[in-house]
Each structure stands twice: as structure tokens, then as C-alpha cells.
């Protein structure tokens, strides 16, 4: 037998209370690690996007307001020599879904001529570019969508609009983009969408956003100001953002995750410290005579202090591990596509978050156990024994 064994056995003393306290640690720790893993996934995506030097130009009022097609030409004329701007690609939100399903894909109708340039990170081959420009129904889909619906290159697929008149469009897949940071993306040609509108006697012009591919970061910053200045005081004023900021804004519209995670961490520490502190204090009070006997047997005050403190730390770490382990297992074993949540990138396991959670568990364990341990240290053996004898 060792003192560690005695500590572990002590946790079994009141199993319900130990269990509930461990769960009180486990749940917030699990949410904390998950939230930070979401942030890590998002940050990683943002970092990748930043390198793509894309400037998103959308209506100043809202993304749902279309900008005139003519904005593309006006933007291109800002740099006719193409020293700062490589290409401009207009996109229009379609938001279709596979008929019979409820999940809206991030489907966008894009300018056929410039998509391969602006989205060079898709890595289309020469043959794929030729195919994209030859086939009006061509579509490029992210790996997540393809895996979810079992699609492969060459398949003919149908998307149905989620708004009246719920038009259906048929596409032919020419490329599965596995590395897409947004696993539910679906690109197709805007002229194909325009044809569909025209067939129904409707006007389908206008873009939700223009993506401007810049040559470097300095060009991106200067064009950002020039574009917004160009359309200032017009009926269709713009707001230009780099892609990273654009996605961040989009995600923050759903919820400011980094701030949420930070707030959560603070709340976790306070609540769990209170719960654990209460448990440890109750445990100490119940065992005050037993601890006095430990002292009488020759256990030093320091050793008794460490026993009580270690018990609290052990409980905190066990509870934290209980919450963290399923998240670690889930994020390690489950394919990222299955973990996607709304517009967010799939969470990516953050070992820093795991370490951080365990550190929080350790700190909370020490904080919660310190006062009872201090009381045990100062416990006058004779006074405690007199309560009985």
C-alpha cells in the first residue's frame, strides 16, 4: 500500500459525490476543449486564406444585396496593366440542396473565365480548366460534399434552389476539391445560372460578391481602399475585406467563438473551483477527526496538508480527463467532415487546449483544495480528538 492508494481509496468514500464533482469538471472541460478545437480549425483556415491574397467586394448594406455585374469591369479598370490585380471573379449565391435533403450547400455560381485564376488554390489542371470552360454545366465540389453524397468526377448531379421557384439545375462534376477549407462548397458557372433565369423570363444578373485576386499584400490593401472609394456615394456602395476578415465576419455572425471560448474558460474556472471547493470542504469536515488521528499516528502537518491537497488535485484531474478524453477520441477517430458544424470549419484537435484544460484542472484542484488543506495543516490534534473522546 502507498499513500497514492490511500488517496484513490478516499475518492471512493462517497462515490456519488465524487462522481458528481468529476462530472462537474468533465462537462465544462469537454466544451472548452471542443470550443478551442473549433477555434483552431477556424484559425488554420484563416491562415491558409490569408496567403491567397483574395479581396472580397460585397454590397455595403448586406451580403444579400446584389452588386451590378458592371462592378467587375470597373474594378478591373483600376489596374489595367495588371500590376496589382490578377483577376476578378463575380459570384452569386445559389444555396441549393440535393433534392429530397434539407442541407443547404454553399453553392455559388462563378464567372467561368476567372475562377481558375482567382481560385488557383483549387489546383485545376490544364485539362480541367479546358473542361470547366467548355462544359456549361461543369461543377467543382469540395471533398466534404462529394464524400457525403458519394459523388465522383464525371457524375451528373442535381441541385434544387431553396427559394421559389425552387428551380432545379443539373451539373456534371469535373473536379473534387479535397483540400477545400470549406467542406460543403459547390462552384458552378454563372452563365449557366443566367441561362436558367432567362429561360424562365427572369433577370439573373448581379453578384453577391466579387473576389479580386491581388499580386501581394500591399496591392490588396491599396485596392481595398480604392474599390470602396470608387463606389462611394453610388447606389451600390461596396465594402471590401480580405478573405480572412470576410470569413471571420461571417463566422462571427454565427457566434464570436474566440471570445466565447475565453469567456467559457473564465466561467469554467470559477464554477468548477466553487463546486470542487465545496466538495473538498465537505470532505474535510467529515474527516476532521480522521485527519487528527493521522497526525496522532505521526503524519506531519505538511504531509496531512499534501494528502488533502493531492486529493483535490486528483479529483480535478480525473474529472478533467473524463471530459477531455471523449473529445480527444472523437476528434482523432471521427473524420473531420462528420464534425462540421454549420458554417464553421471542422474542429481540429488542439493539444494546447488539452494541455490548457488539464492545467486549468490542476489550478482549480489546487485552488479548491488549498483552504481545506490549510485547515488540515493548522488542525489542532487535541481539539479535533476532544470532539469524540
Amino acid at each position, binding site marked *: *500500500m*502507498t499513500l497514492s492508494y490511500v488517496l484513490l481509496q478516499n475518492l471512493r468514500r462517497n462515490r456519488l459525490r465524487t462522481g458528481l464533482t468529476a462530472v462537474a469538471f468533465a462537462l465544462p472541460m469537454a466544451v472548452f476543449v471542443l470550443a478551442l478545437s473549433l477555434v483552431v480549425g477556424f484559425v488554420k483556415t484563416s491562415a491558409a486564406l490569408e496567403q491567397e491574397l483574395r479581396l472580397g467586394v460585397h454590397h455595403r448594406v448586406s451580403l444579400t444585396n446584389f452588386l451590378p455585374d458592371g462592378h467587375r469591369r470597373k474594378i478591373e479598370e483600376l489596374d489595367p496593366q495588371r500590376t496589382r490585380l490578377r483577376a476578378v471573379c463575380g459570384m452569386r449565391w445559389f444555396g441549393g440542396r440535393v433534392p429530397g435533403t434539407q442541407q443547404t450547400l454553399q453553392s455559388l455560381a462563378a464567372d467561368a473565365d476567372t475562377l481558375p485564376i482567382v481560385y488557383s488554390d483549387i489546383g485545376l489542371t490544364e485539362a480541367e480548366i479546358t473542361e470547366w470552360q467548355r462544359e456549361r454545366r461543369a461543377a467543382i465540389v469540395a471533398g466534404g460534399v462529394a464524400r457525403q453524397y458519394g459523388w465522383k468526377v464525371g457524375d451528373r448531379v442535381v441541385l434544387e434552389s431553396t427559394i421559389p421557384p425552387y428551380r432545379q439545375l443539373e451539373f456534371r462534376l469535373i473536379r473534387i476539391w479535397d483540400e477545400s477549407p470549406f467542406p460543403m462548397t459547390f462552384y458552378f458557372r454563372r452563365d449557366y445560372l443566367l441561362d436558367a433565369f432567362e429561360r424562365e423570363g427572369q433577370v439573373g444578373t448581379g453578384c453577391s460578391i466579387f473576389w479580386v485576386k491581388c499580386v501581394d499584400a500591399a496591392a490588396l490593401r491599396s485596392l481595398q481602399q480604392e474599390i470602396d472609394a470608387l463606389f462611394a456615394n453610388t447606389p451600390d456602395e461596396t465594402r471590401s475585406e480580405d478573405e480572412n476578415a470576410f470569413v471571420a465576419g461571417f463566422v462571427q455572425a454565427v457566434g464570436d467563438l474566440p471570445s466565447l471560448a475565453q469567456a467559457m474558460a473564465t466561467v469554467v474556472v470559477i464554477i468548477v473551483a466553487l463546486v470542487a471547493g465545496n466538495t473538498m470542504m465537505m470532505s474535510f469536515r467529515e474527516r476532521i477527526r480522521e485527519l487528527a488521528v493521522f497526525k496522532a*499516528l505521526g503524519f506531519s502537518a505538511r504531509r496531512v496538508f499534501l494528502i488533502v491537497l493531492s486529493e483535490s488535485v486528483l479529483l480535478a484531474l480525473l474529472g478533467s480527463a473524463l471530459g477531455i478524453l471523449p473529445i480527444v477520441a472523437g476528434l482523432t477517430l471521427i473524420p473531420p467532415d462528420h464534425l462540421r458544424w454549420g458554417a464553421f470549419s471542422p474542429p481540429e484537435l488542439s493539444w494546447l487546449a488539452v494541455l490548457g484544460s488539464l492545467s486549468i484542472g490542476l489550478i482549480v484542484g489546487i485552488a479548491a483544495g488549498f483552504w481545506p488543506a490549510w485547515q488540515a495543516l493548522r488542525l489542532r490534534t487535541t481539539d479535533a*480528538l476532544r470532539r469524540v*473522546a
Partner: protein
Amino acid sequence: MSAADIELVDLHKHYRKGRIDIPALDGLSLTIDAGSFVAIMGPSGSGKSTLLHLIGGLDSADSGIIRVGEYRLDRMSERQLTAWRSRHVGFIFQMYHLVPVLTAAQNVELPLLLFRMPARERRKRVATALEVVGLADRMDHRPNQLSGGQEQRVAIARAIVTDPDVILADEPTGDLDARTSQEILQLLSLLNAEFGKTIVMVTHDPRAAAFGQRILHLDKGVLDRDERNPARPAAAAHAH
């Protein structure tokens, strides 16, 4: 097998309750010979438990000399007293105070965790101690699987497992029925007679005190009477 004599000279101990000064021991002097069995009696507040705690190094006196064997407890720091207790004193309490989540053997082993001792040697000592108290067949039982008498036997085994010089018992039969009390007292007598342990026992019960070779009566912090028990072989003992 070891035993120690005890010498107390002009012991004073006061407690404060708010502004009131309560004398617990008021100039008590006493000598207890090594290997004797002494019972201490007296009304509540007479200083019995205080005396026991001072002899056991659990508390310190305001003034006076406390010597147990070759050790002057009144000159020791709290840290030194703690170390001394672990090797030289065994305590037995009225309510046994066993750790409920540990087995009988593990409870007995607890004080040995303070020693640098191989696990095998620890197990051997635990087995011997439990055999002495007649619980060799209950080693793996938890306290809630034992009767009150058996729990007290485990507590006695815990007190003797370190082979202390002195065993201090505070109302060891206070929570037991008459028959079990007799068994426990016989066990203490055995430890005294067979193993030569110096035993100091505080009790309210004259039948329990009758097991002592010497019965000391305390009152208001001083020695009121010092009786030798003719029914028990007298050990050399005297009060100043």
C-alpha cells in the same frame, strides 16, 4: 520489544476560553515505570485527556518537564514530536477512527507508511499485529464489515504495529458492551504482560480501571489519589 518509563514534573497546562483561563493540569508530578499498566480516572475536566495528550506529544505544557524514556518532550519542537510519535507511541481511541475505505490490514499498515521499510516487511508486521489481536482471519475486511470490538482490535493492532514504547488508550472501551470491553482489556493486559509495553489508559469505568496495576485519580488538574491494584501484580511506581 521495548518499553519506556515516564516522568512528569510540575506540569502546568491552561486553556483559554474567551477571557476565561481554565486550568487543566496544575503542577502535576508523576512517575510511571517502564512496562507498567496505569489507569487514570477522574471526573470530566479533571485533566485526564490533557495528561494523555501531553505524554503522547500531541500537546505541549505551559511549564514543567515531560520525559518519556530518554526523550524530553518539553524540549522538542512540534516537528520533532511528530517524528517521535510515529516511532514511540501507539494511540487507541474510544471511537477507533479507522479509515472506512481501507481494509483491516491496510488500516494497520498506515503508520508504517512513515517508515522506510520494504513492502514485504510491512506486510509481515501487519500480519503479526493482526495475529496478536486475534484478527488474522479478518485482514481483508473493511471496518463496516467488522463489529465494534473487532474494529477496536484493529485499532490496537494499528497502535502496536510500529512496536512503540508506550501505548496510550483514551476510553478504549467507552463505546463497547461489557463483554467486548472485557476482551479488549484482556488484550491490553496481554500486551503489557507478554510484550512489556507501558500502557496508560484513561477511563471512567472502574471495571476497566481494575485492569491497571496502578490507578491514578485526578481531580482539578492534580493527583488526588494513587492506588495500587492488589488484584494485579504491582509494577514499581510512585508519585512525588
